[in-house]
C-alpha cells in the first residue's frame, strides 16, 4: 500500500523550551495590557454606580442627557445615509468597472480607491476647500458661495457626503470581489435564454452579489460610526455633534473626570460597531455555500454606442469626486492668506515653506508622527511574527486566543480604544510609579494596540498557505522551535510583515482619532496639527500640511503596492 500523502496540519507540539514559554508569556502580556485591559476597564468604568450609588448610574446618567440623545440620533442618520451613498457609489462603480468595456478601467479603479489612502480629516479639509466661499476652484468658475456665508459642507449633509465618498471604496472592493466569484456560466446562461445585459445585471448578477453588497455596506456603516475626522472638521463648526465628537468635546472640556461618562457613551459606539460586524459575519457565513467558484470570469459587456457617453460621464464623475477636492486642497495651500483670490500673481509657496520649516510646532509634529509610526510598525511586526507562528503553525491555543483578541482594538471605533487606553494608563504605572498620561508613550500604546492587526493578518495569512512539511522537515532534523521560527518561518513571512508594517506606518503617520484624545503640548501628531491649524482658521497652512502628508502617504502606498504585488499577493487591501 502506498502511503497517502495529503497535507495535514501539524499536530500541536507541546511547548518545552523555557525560551519559547518566555516569548509566549511576553505576547500574552502585550495583548493583556494593550488590548484586554483597556477594553475591559472601559466596561467596568462605564458600568459603575452613579454618584448616588444607584445601579448602572453612570450609564443612565450619560444616556439621559439631551446632547447624548441628539448625538446618538445624528450618528445614526450620518452613518445610515453615508452608507447608502457608499453603497450606491461603490456598487455602481464595481459594476461599471468590472462588467463593462469602459475605457481606462484600471485608472478609474485606482482613482475610485484613492479616498482609502487619504485620511478622513484630509478629505474633509479638501472638500471644505472646494465648497467654501473662498474656494479657489469654484472662485475661478464664479460658482463659489457668496463671501460671508458659511461653508455648505459644515452641515449634516456635508458629513454624509464626505463620509459616503470616504467609505465607498470599502463597498467597491467587496462588490468587485463578489463579482469576480460569479461564475461566467450563470451570466451566459441568462443571455442564451434571451436576457439583455441590463436584465442579466438586475435579475442574475445583483441577486448573486447581494451578500457582497450587504457585507460592504456593513463595513461602511461600521467605519462611519467610528469616523472622527469628518465630523470633527465638518460637524464641530457646523454644530452637528456625533457621538465621536461628543466624546472628544467632553474629554477636551472636562478632562479625565468625565471618563466614566464618555465610557458609557462609548458603549453605544461599540454596540453599533458590533451590530454591523455581526451582520457582516452572518452574511458571509450564509453566502459561503451558495455560489461555488468555477471557471473563468465573465467577459465584460460591450457598451457599444454607449461606450463613449458612459465613459465620459464616468470619468467626469470620478475626477469630480476623487481628484477635484485634492486640487482644491493644493489650490487652498497656494493662496497666501484666507480670502485672497487665487491667480498667477497671488500664487505663493509661503504656506508650504511655513509648514516645512517655519514653525517649530509643525516640525515637532513631523518628528513625533514619524517616530511614533516607525516604532509602532516595527514593534507590531516583531510581535506579529511570533504570535502568528504560535497561533497558525504551532496551533497553540493561547496564541490563537491572543490572535482573536487582537481584532478587537481595530474593530472598535478609535475613540473607544483611546478612552480605554486613558483609563488604564492614567494612574501611575505599577512598580515604576509614574504615569505616562500626557506623554509620547500613551499615544504609542494606543497605536500598538490598534494597529497590531494590520501586521498580524498578512503574516498569519501567509503562514496559513505554507506547507506544514516545511516546519515538520525542520523539526525532524532536530531544529529547536525558536530556531525554526527564526530560520525557517521568518524569511517566508518577511514580505508580508514588511507590507503590514508599511500599512501601519501609513495609518499611524496621519492618524487623528487616537491622538486627538491622547496628545498634549509637545506630543502633537500631524493629524492633530492639521486639525488645529484648520480650527485656528489658518486653512491655507492646514491645506499645505495636508498636501505634504498626502504626498508622503501616496509614495508609501506605491511602495506597499510594489511589495504586495511582487512578494505578498492578497495582502494589500486595495489590490483586487
Amino acid at each position, binding site marked *: 500500500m502506498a502511503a497517502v500523502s495529503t497535507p495535514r496540519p501539524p499536530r500541536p507540539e507541546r511547548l518545552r523550551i523555557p525560551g519559547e514559554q518566555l516569548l509566549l508569556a511576553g505576547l500574552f502580556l502585550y495583548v493583556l495590557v494593550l488590548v484586554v485591559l483597556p477594553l475591559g476597564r472601559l466596561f467596568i468604568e462605564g458600568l459603575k454606580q452613579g454618584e448616588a450609588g444607584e445601579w448602572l448610574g453612570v450609564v443612565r446618567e450619560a444616556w439621559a442627557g439631551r446632547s447624548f440623545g441628539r448625538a446618538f440620533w445624528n450618528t445614526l442618520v450620518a452613518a445610515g445615509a453615508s452608507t447608502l451613498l457608499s453603497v450606491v457609489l461603490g456598487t455602481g462603480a464595481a459594476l461599471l468597472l468590472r462588467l463593462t468595456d469602459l475605457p481606462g478601467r484600471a485608472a478609474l479603479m485606482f482613482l475610485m480607491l484613492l479616498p482609502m489612502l487619504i485620511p478622513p480629516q484630509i478629505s474633509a479639509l479638501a472638500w471644505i476647500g472646494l465648497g467654501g466661499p473662498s474656494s479657489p476652484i469654484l472662485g475661478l468658475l464664479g460658482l463659489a458661495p457668496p463671501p460671508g456665508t458659511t461653508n455648505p459642507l459644515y452641515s449634516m449633509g456635508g458629513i454624509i457626503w464626505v463620509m459616503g465618498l470616504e467609505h465607498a471604496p470599502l463597498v467597491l472592493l467587496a462588490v468587485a470581489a463578489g463579482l469576480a466569484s460569479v461564475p461566467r456560466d450563470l451570466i451566459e446562461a441568462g443571455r*442564451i435564454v434571451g436576457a439583455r445585459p441590463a436584465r442579466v445585471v438586475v435579475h442574475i448578477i445583483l441577486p448573486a452579489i447581494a451578500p457582497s453588497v450587504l457585507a460592504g455596506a456593513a463595513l461602511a456603516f461600521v467605519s462611519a460610526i467610528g469616523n472622527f475626522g469628518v465630523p470633527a472638521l465638518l460637524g464641530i463648526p457646523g454644530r452637528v455633534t456625533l457621538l465621536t465628537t461628543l466624546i472628544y468635546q467632553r474629554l477636551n472640556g472636562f478632562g479625565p473626570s468625565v471618563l466614566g461618562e464618555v465610557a458609557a457613551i462609548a458603549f453605544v459606539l461599540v454596540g453599533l460597531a458590533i451590530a454591523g460586524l455581526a451582520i457582516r459575519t452572518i452574511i458571509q457565513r450564509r453566502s459561503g455555500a451558495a455560489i461555488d467558484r468555477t471557471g473563468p470570469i465573465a467577459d465584460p459587456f460591450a457598451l457599444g454606442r454607449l461606450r463613449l457617453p458612459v465613459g465620459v460621464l464616468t470619468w467626469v464623475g470620478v475626477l469630480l469626486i476623487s481628484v477635484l477636492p485634492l486640487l482644491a486642497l493644493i489650490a487652498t495651500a497656494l493662496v497666501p492668506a484666507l480670502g485672497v483670490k487665487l491667480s498667477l500673481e497671488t500664487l505663493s509657496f509661503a504656506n508650504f515653506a511655513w509648514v516645512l520649516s517655519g514653525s517649530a510646532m509643525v516640525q515637532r509634529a513631523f518628528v513625533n508622527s514619524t517616530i511614533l509610526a516607525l516604532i509602532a510598525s516595527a514593534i507590531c511586526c516583531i510581535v506579529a511574527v511570533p504570535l502568528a507562528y504560535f497561533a497558525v503553525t504551532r496551533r497553540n491555543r493561547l496564541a490563537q486566543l491572543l490572535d482573536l483578541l487582537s481584532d478587537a482594538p481595530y474593530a472598535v471605533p478609535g475613540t473607544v480604544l483611546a478612552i480605554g487606553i486613558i483609563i488604564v494608563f492614567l494612574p501611575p504605572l505599577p512598580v515604576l510609579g509614574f504615569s505616562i498620561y500626557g506623554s509620547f508613550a500613551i499615544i504609542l500604546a494606543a497605536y500598538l494596540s490598534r494597529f497590531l492587526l494590520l501586521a498580524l493578518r498578512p503574516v498569519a495569512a501567509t503562514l496559513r498557505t505554507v506547507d506544514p512539511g516545511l516546519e515538520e522537515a525542520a523539526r525532524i532534523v532536530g531544529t529547536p522551535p525558536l530556531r525554526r521560527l527564526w530560520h525557517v518561518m521568518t524569511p517566508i513571512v518577511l514580505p508580508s510583515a514588511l507590507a503590514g508594517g508599511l500599512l501601519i506606518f501609513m495609518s499611524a503617520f496621519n492618524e487623528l482619532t487616537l491622538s486627538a484624545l491622547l496628545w498634549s503640548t509637545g506630543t502633537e501628531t500631524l493629524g492633530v496639527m492639521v486639525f488645529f491649524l484648520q480650527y485656528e482658521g489658518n486653512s491655507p497652512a492646514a491645506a499645505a500640511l495636508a498636501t505634504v502628508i498626502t504626498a508622503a502617504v501616496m509614495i508609501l502606498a506605491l511602495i506597499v503596492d510594489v511589495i504586495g504585488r511582487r512578494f505578498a499577493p492578497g495582502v494589500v487591501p486595495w489590490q483586487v
Partner: protein
Amino acid sequence: MASVDVIAATKSFGKTPVLRGVDLAIADGEFLALLGPSGCGKTTLLRLIAGLERLGSGEIRIDGEVMEGPGRFVDPEDRHLGMVFQSYALWPHMSVRRNVEFGLAMRGVARPERRQRVASALAAVGLTGLEDRRPQALSGGQRQRAALARCIALSPRIILLDEPLANLDAHLRHAMQQEFRRLHRETGTTFVFVTHDQSEAMALADRVAVMDKGQLQQVGTPEALYAEPATAMVAAFVGKGALLPVAVEGRSQGGSLSITLAGHRIESRGDAAPGPGLLCLRPDDVVIVPANFPGSLPARVAEVSYRGGHYAVDLVLPALPGHRIEASMRHAPQPGEAVSLQFEGGWVLAAPDAVRAEAA
C-alpha cells in the same frame, strides 16, 4: 429547428490559434456530436455558434441567416438557441420553477402560458414536484434535468450541449443519454452535443464531427468513422484502432487494395494512393491462428486481460518493433506464446506527410 453553417471559422486567444479554418454544416433536425481530445477547441466552436465568443475570421449562419461575419454580429440573446452547460449554470437564487420560467419571461411570454410551458417542460424531464427546490437542493442528475428543462421550455431552434454528462456517474449517464435521444426524437430540434467520450458520441449522434488541434478531421456517421476513418487521428481516437505502416501496391479488380505489411501481402479496403500508407486494424479485424500457419504474420502474445466473455490479447510483431495490435479471443493464450495473425478487414489510409517523408 434549424441548420447551422460554420464557414472557414478561425479563432485565437491572444496569439494561440484555437480554431484553424473550420467548415461544418449541421442539417436541420440533426443530432451532431462534436468529438475530440481535451483542448482541441470543441467548447470554443460551440460558444462561437452561441455567440458567446467572437470569430477571428469566417462566418456563422443559422438557417442561412448570417449570425456573425464581416461587419455583422447577432447577440446571443437574439439567436434563439438553447444551451446546456457542463456546470449546468442554474441560477442559485432562483427556484427550479423560476429558473425555467426566467427565459420565458425574458421573451415576453404571458403568465398563464408561462405556467403551462414550465409545467410541461418539467414533466418532460421528470422533475414534476420539485418546482420549489433551489438548485443547491437537487442531486447531480436532477440539476442536469432542470438545466435541460430550462432549455427546452423555450423551444429553441438549436440545442447546444457542452459535455452535459461529464459530471454524472456511469449509470446516470446512460439513463440521461436515452433521455437526450428521446427528447431529440420528440422535439425534432437540432442538437449539437460536445463530448470527448467516443462511445457516447457514437451511441447518441446521427453524425459525429471529429476535431483535433482546432481542425475538423472527419464528419460522418458513427459507422463511417469506425469503418473508414479518414485520418490517422480519427483511426486512433475512435475504436482504439492500431495503425501499422504498410506499402500500398495498387487497387485490385474487386476494388480492394493490395498492400504489404512487413513483407506480408494482404488485401484490404481503403482509400490511399500507391506508396506509403497506414493500415488501421480493430480487434475484430484480427484472427489468431497457430504459429507458422501458412500465409500468416508471426506475432507474440504480450498481455492478456479478461473482458467478460472474451479476452483482450495484446500482441507484438517481431517484424514491426514498437507497434502493438489488440485482438480478442474466447480462450486465454499464455503471455509470451508465439502465434500467427491473419487479417479480415481493416482500413487503409494514406500516411500523413511525416511518415511519407520518412519513407522517402
